[in-house]
């Protein structure tokens, strides 16, 4: 074998073949990694019980019939659009099964300020579901509204 060819073969094994073996190792090791639960997609919210709404501010939220929540997820963070009274895309975060977001409402009166969404995901349900509360900030008389949400169209998985 010529010297140049020998050098080429050694360089090829070192720079191409070995790294490819490393790649296989990384892919294998990565299978045990846990990514945040997927919440991307459109969710339908139902208040529990449906007729109950506490105080003026709660009434305004519930009067937005068929609340639909659109979530665009990027790992632990997401942006959320809530149809009806709340329509601005807002950031939120997900930690394990806990979902949190701060929403700004269209009504900006002192009593009916922003809304905090806190929910817990059920990772085993199919389609995916979450349950939690929508609570008004700056409104002492408003009780948090309990809701249950189900993801409408499960996102196509990339397995």
């Amino acid at each position: 074998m010529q010297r140049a060819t020998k050098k080429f073969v050694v360089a090829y094994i070192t720079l191409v073949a070995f790294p490819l073996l490393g790649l296989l190792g990384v892919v294998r090791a990565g299978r045990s990694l846990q990514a945040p639960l997927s919440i991307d997609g459109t969710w339908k919210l139902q208040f529990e019980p449906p007729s109950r709404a506490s105080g003026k501010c709660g009434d305004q939220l519930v009067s937005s019939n068929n609340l639909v929540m659109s979530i665009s997820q990027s790992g632990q963070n997401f942006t959320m659009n809530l149809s009806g009274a709340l329509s601005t895309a807002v950031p939120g975060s997900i930690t394990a099964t806990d979902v949190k977001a701060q929403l700004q409402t269209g009504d900006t009166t002192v009593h009916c300020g922003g809304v905090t969404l806190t929910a817990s995901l059920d990772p085993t349900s199919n389609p995916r579901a979450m349950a939690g509360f929508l609570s008004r900030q700056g409104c002492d008389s408003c009780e948090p509204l309990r809701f249950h949400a189900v993801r409408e169209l499960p996102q196509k998985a990339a397995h």
Partner: protein
Amino acid sequence: MPNLFTLVLQVTIILASCRILGVLFKKIHQPRVVGEMFAGILLGPSLLGWLAPHFSAYLFPPSSLGFLSALSQIGVVVFMFLVGLRINPGELKKHGHSAVLASHVSITAPFVLATFLAFFLYPKLSDDSVSFTSFALFMGAAMSVTAFPVLARILQERDWLHTRLGTVAIASAAVDDVTGWCILAYIVMLTRAAGGSSPIYVVISGIVTFVLIMLFVVQRLLLGFERAYRKNGELSENAMALMLLIMMCASLCTEWLGLHLLFGAFLMGAVMPKERHFVRYVLDRFETITVTLLLPIFFAFTGLRTNIALVRGPEMWGYCALIVLVATVGKLGGSAVAARLTTMPTREAIGLGTLMNTRGLMELVILDIGLDIKVISPALFTMMVVMALITTFMASPLLDVVCPDQLVWQGTEKAQRAVGASVPQLEFENGSVA
């Protein structure tokens, strides 16, 4: 029905913005395509949507985006056909060890580094609907791609197409693109098969059959176009229409088989006859409308999906910087080290790495597919677009510093004297690439 006024207004503003930015970027010695990519970003939520949200909502209402998307996809289908057409598998054989090693290392180095990076980013920027394998392989494919057309444009503008650096770069980039698209095809196939009704072995059998038909049946039939061109010095409108028709059928086949439209178009281009004048003739016929009308729409559509606001806080910008660093070290560093090992002088080797690090439009095409099949999240998509812009933008100034013209030509003459022959001529003379 589309609102025609809105659609035409959108296209007018997109074309004007791309043209203006393209000209401005030319003035700072950047390929026009870099300016057009920037124009797309500026028209999206990252600038226009941020500065003038009401005007942005008026100009790009969500209901109109479907039509814009369809137009942009047709543009990219034709563009991928042209990319495949430019690729000549015979080129690599002429350049020996340098091109083989440089091209393979310029794929494996960024690919492996990207999978290591994926190990870190997956828990932070992905979710459990995407498997780590798909995520890691996609990151690898996205980071190892080279913008073949932009690279050819840079070489042409510098008159380096016939230098040793130019020929090795073109041959390596061609191998990179073919390999990158094969890997991407595999990922798309896995992803779609998981959500589809056909078992994966059916999908694979279909794709293999399609590729064999393209290689052993369609390729022979396509020689008829070259014969007609040789005979008449041109192709009739019917012949051009037939070529388009076959390209569209190939695209539909790959889409139907569970891949993506673009793979069929790319393969059709790759199996076209490679006679130099014929290739130039077909490129001339298709390129003008694709480059001046359809690709700017693609840039704008990509820009509309790129939202810099999603990269929030120092932590996210840190990830973005890491992506740029890994992409650059893997591609530029890997190619340069490989070229240096095959006796290319250090500065020329860095020049080769710089050229290979140009991702440009090809990266955007791959990222768009990744976002469509949801293998990457919107924030990661934005970070990768930023990486594509930075790595493409840095090519020209870096080449000015490390590879002055004189040095490149001296290297070429030295190499010619050493082998007693001229550097092989390439097929890209006078090419007006995007």
